[in-house]
């Protein structure tokens, strides 16, 4: 489509596998009443011991655009607690669950920092917003692994942040690593880290597709 020096530079980068575009992912949840225990344990396990957990509050919007063969999912995320930060546009590919032997979900993912005009841009481009939500919680780091413990809220119309309606009585726990293609060793590290959080949280490959089509 475009043959430009910059894009060809990116092409080369992709070809030589230095662009971290693969996301290794494990998901789970923890009940509200024991989230403190989990946070405490994560504080001990993770790198940012002295600074404590990093709080965040993000607004995420999910867009789709009709492409062939499958529609494309794009996500826009912005930090509500740091309005001056750039917004994040994210492409997430189809997750691969693999067989029992594969420790984590793998999906391709492109993270792009961008300006606040991104929503208008996508809308004009022909994308349609499917849904939006607010995630509020804490982020931890352990080496390259990122652990988020967050509460998912529905967007309400009057936008007041106090009266947000939580989606469930659990916190969502996600363990993810963004790595270049072919670095499957990290998945093993993730599995062993997830093992340390058992039985408090069962981090696993959650196949939401089956859930959506399964019984409600």
């Amino acid at each position, binding site marked *: 489509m475009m043959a430009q020096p910059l894009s060809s530079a990116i092409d080369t980068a992709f070809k030589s596998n230095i662009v971290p575009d693969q996301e290794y992912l494990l998901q789970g949840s923890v009940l509200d009443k024991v989230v403190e225990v989990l946070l405490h344990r994560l504080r001990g396990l993770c790198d940012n011991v002295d600074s404590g957990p990093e709080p965040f509050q993000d607004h995420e919007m999910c867009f789709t655009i009709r492409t062939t063969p499958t529609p494309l999912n794009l996500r826009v995320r912005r930090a509500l607690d740091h309005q001056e930060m750039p917004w994040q546009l994210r492409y997430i590919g189809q997750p691969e669950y693999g067989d029992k032997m594969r420790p984590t979900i793998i999906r391709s993912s492109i993270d792009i920092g961008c300006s*606040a005009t991104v929503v208008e841009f996508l809308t004009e481009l022909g994308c349609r917003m499917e849904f939006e939500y607010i995630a509020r919680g804490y982020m931890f780091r352990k080496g390259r692994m990122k652990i988020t413990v967050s509460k998912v809220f529905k967007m309400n119309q009057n936008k007041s942040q106090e009266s947000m309606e939580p989606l469930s009585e659990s916190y969502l726990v996600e363990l993810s690593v963004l790595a270049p293609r072919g670095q499957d060793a990290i998945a093993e590290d993730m599995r062993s880290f997830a093992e340390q959080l058992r039985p408090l949280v*069962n981090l696993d490959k959650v196949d939401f597709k089956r859930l959506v089509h399964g019984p409600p």
Partner: protein
Amino acid sequence: MQREEKQLDMALDAIIMRVNDLKQSISNMIVKLELEHETLNWPTFLDNFALMSGQLTALTKVLTQDKCPALRNLVVLPIQLSQERDPELLRITEQRVPQFSHDLAPDYLRTKLEPDVEQRMLQLEIKAGNMTYEMAQKQVSAFNKVMNHVWDVVSKAREEWESESGSRSGPQQTTSISDTHLLVSAISAGKNLKMPVPQGQAGPPGMMGPGGRPGVGPPGGPMMNPGQQMGPMGKVPSGIKTNIKAASQIHPYNR
């Protein structure tokens, strides 16, 4: 006569065997105490006692058996006393008794307690005999009361401990699979999050910042991912807000 002697021999053999067993286990225990007192734990120690007590019971059983002739009717006579060292005696007594002399024989053949021990026993028996029935009863009940109390305390502590450890190991729920599924399908596919009204208009409902010019709104101009390998940023002015923030955060005066 012949038959009785045979029976006596057999009974003595049995008794000697039992006594040897007992002796063996006592010496084992002493060795243990001397060599392993640092690592010895209470249960094994008590096991040793239990073993000895069992052996004692066995011994008493042998003594009270019908087959056993009445030993108290028999007399042991020292036939010969000698001041000479007797190697044979030394061997069979495991180097304990070197000679069978006047000095040692009375002690080894003693059937009654030593006089002063006997006297003290007598005193105690008198004391016990003098006690009235009520007093004894009272003391017994007091003792029972104390024991019951200790028993209660111990059993209560045990109950608590067991219930606690039981609840801990029990399946206390910290995570719910249905919640996991709910949350994951919500953030992945928008389950329960999709707006009730079907979107005829694709525009987001007015939660956009100022459109048109970027950087007029809060997010400041073009900002790069710091991890880019594309080289240093050019002259990229960031938002005004960022500037102030940066200035107050970085302490230039802190040397």
